[in-house]
């Protein structure tokens, strides 16, 4: 820790502190005017469905109710059913475990790729950008199809290559049938799809770090690691936190990839994550009350996980 070069013009803290004294007029209607369109959309299309979700979670709501039969109030029955089913805890543990691994991998790889892009020459950066864009632009469904097919038991290119490289016979090796290797493939897909977004966002953030600050610290003898942790990270801290929180939410909610991959192979019972499980219980099996209760419980768990961050946000505000 040889130096902590003070960025002369704009110390890093300035970028992450809460809204400043600049706009102090508390009674101004202006911010409310700015918020109105967003509030209108969210109230109708988010708040109302959530209210409906809460109501449904206290009802016996099946397919007949979807077709107009009056639902019956059942109090906490749905919640009791969710919380007493061993399945729920298995699904929960699986989802959280997968989420942690996926978030760590996605964030780390994404950040490293962003740093790499800064270092690369124009041509190579273009190449990496194109590669990431291709990965990112892939429609989610066909991504799963292509990966599932690359890992196909009989005709998959992965088994073919493994056979060529290792010499032992991989033909007929099923990747999706063992829950653990199912999640390996799923993890590859999710990380592959997730890294570009993290990398681009981090890159967009990191390119905002004033070049002078970095140069000054380099002259002061800071090495790359010190520059990264002492200047770049604090500068993009808010972006990193947002990315982590969002990755947590997304990877916990991962739906399309699991859903489509289960269609290709894998045991539903041992590979369902929360989103898919709720879908199976609700839309597929027609027990909307149970699914609603499960969804509410799931939100509570996510809130618990992100409680620290929510509190930080609130504190930051005071």
């Amino acid at each position, binding site marked *: 820790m040889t130096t902590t070069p003070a960025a002369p013009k704009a110390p890093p803290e300035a970028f992450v502190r809460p809204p400043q004294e600049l706009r102090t007029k508390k009674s101004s209607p202006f911010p409310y005017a700015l918020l109105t369109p967003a509030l209108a959309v969210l109230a109708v299309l988010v708040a109302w469905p959530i209210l409906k979700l809460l109501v449904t979670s206290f009802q016996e709501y099946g*397919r007949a109710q979807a*077709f107009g039969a009056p639902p019956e109030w059942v109090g906490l029955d749905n919640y009791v059913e969710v919380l007493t089913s061993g399945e729920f805890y298995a699904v929960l543990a699986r989802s959280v475990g997968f989420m942690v691994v996926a978030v760590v991998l996605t964030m780390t790889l994404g950040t490293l790729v962003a740093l790499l892009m800064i270092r690369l020459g124009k041509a190579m950066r273009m190449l990496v950008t194109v590669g990431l864009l291709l990965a990112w632009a892939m429609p989610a469904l066909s991504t799963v199809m292509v990966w599932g097919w690359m890992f196909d*038991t009989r005709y998959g290119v992965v088994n073919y290559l493994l056979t060529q490289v290792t010499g032992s016979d991989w033909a007929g090796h099923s990747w999706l*049938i063992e829950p653990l290797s199912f999640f390996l493939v799923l993890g590859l897909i999710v990380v592959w799809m997730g890294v570009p977004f993290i990398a681009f966002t981090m890159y967009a953030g990191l390119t905002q770090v004033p070049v002078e600050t970095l140069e000054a610290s380099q002259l002061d003898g800071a090495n790359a690691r010190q520059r990264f942790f002492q200047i770049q990270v604090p500068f993009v801290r808010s972006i990193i936190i947002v990315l982590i929180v969002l990755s947590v939410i997304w990877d916990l909610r991962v739906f399309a990839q699991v859903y489509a991959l289960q269609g290709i*192979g894998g045991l*539903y019972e041992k590979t369902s994550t929360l989103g898919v499980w709720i879908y199976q219980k609700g839309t597929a*099996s027609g*027990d909307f009350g149970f699914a609603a209760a499960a969804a509410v419980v799931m939100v509570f768990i996510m809130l618990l996980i992100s409680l620290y961050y929510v509190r930080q946000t609130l504190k930051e505000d005071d």
Partner: protein
Amino acid sequence: MKRARNVVAAATTVTLALALSACASGDTPADDSGETAAEEAPAGDIRVWLVGSDTPEEAREHLKTTFEAENEGSTLTIEEQSWTGLVDKYTTALSGSDSPDLVEIGNTQAPAFTSAGAFLDLTDSYEELGGDDLLPGFVESGSFEGQFYAAPYYSGARVGIYSTEITGDVEVPATWDEYLANIETLASDEVSGLYTPGKDWRNGMVFVWANGGDIATVDDSGTWTGGFSSPESITGLEQLQDVMLNSNHAPADSDETDPQVPFCAGEIGYLTAPSWVRWSIAAAEDAEVPGCLETYGAEDKLSAFAIPGAEEGTYAPVLAGGSNIAIPTNAPNPELARSALEIILSDDYQEILAANGLVPAKVSQAEFMADDAFSQASAAAAAAAQLTPASPLWADVEASGVLEDSFVKLAQGEDVATVAAELDAEIEGTLNG
């Protein structure tokens, strides 16, 4: 169905009278009764949802032209749906205002919707549509609490398909034991004696039923008991597991789609599949989805048999596959839909289905079935076919994927009794609400 028919008897007079008045004076302004107004059947555009590619092109064409000829000024559009996620889609689509007018639905899925009030009550048209001539098992799956909601569309039963190129001089089995013995004989390092992909529980069920087992039984109080743990079922599942592990090369986690690929690679001895799979096998080598018309699928080599039962001359119960067809409650043009439904159940239409290897919706129409091995096997197998438990909740069991999971476990060599007990518990949990 007794009750349904009583209702029919009572309703027939009314319907008849209305129908007559409608015929006599098509232009008469509607009176106050909403039903009469509906009988007027104003011209409109109706949408028909057929699922998958089972309905042959010729039948679609026939339906469209006949309907449009019979109902001047109206049009009929067929919109093909996918079997994958069908229950999910119907749950929303049929409950909304933009519902189609006529929908096909898998016979095992129908109860989930008849019980939910998703379909229009067709009880008063029961006799008109064919009455007791309609396939009984399918009338049952289309009825709920004595009312008739979904008519039979077609049936199809799984038959054993083989190519003499592989089976050589192995005789067609006459009994269940011979069938098992043949499977073992045909199996080699390259060839699956019987092609049994792990997820294909529908094929696996014949092992349970052939040995006298059952999926689930219901007692007088309406409580379901899972049947996979019964001694008969266990015997069947053990036989199945033996085949899966020792006479089969299909991956444990694969399903029954695309069987023509391994079949055309010469890797299958017996394949149990709906008879129309023959057309996938007997497709040209350079077709869009290639088959092997020149080799394993050649006309003089490809044949089929109905899976034999314990005694010679009997047949093992296979899973009755097929579809019902119904008018959604929210259909915009229910009367036009009724007219289309009548065309679908007519001899002309069903004859086209029969020619393509499907078992027609009415018992009397079975005569349209062709005289080849496939159609004969189909008809024999259909006669012995079994249905899944008659519960509106059965579709939920299927939708949960628990059957696929359990059969995959068998294919992985897990303990039969344990798998069966777990499966029973799951089924009971769902069927008993």
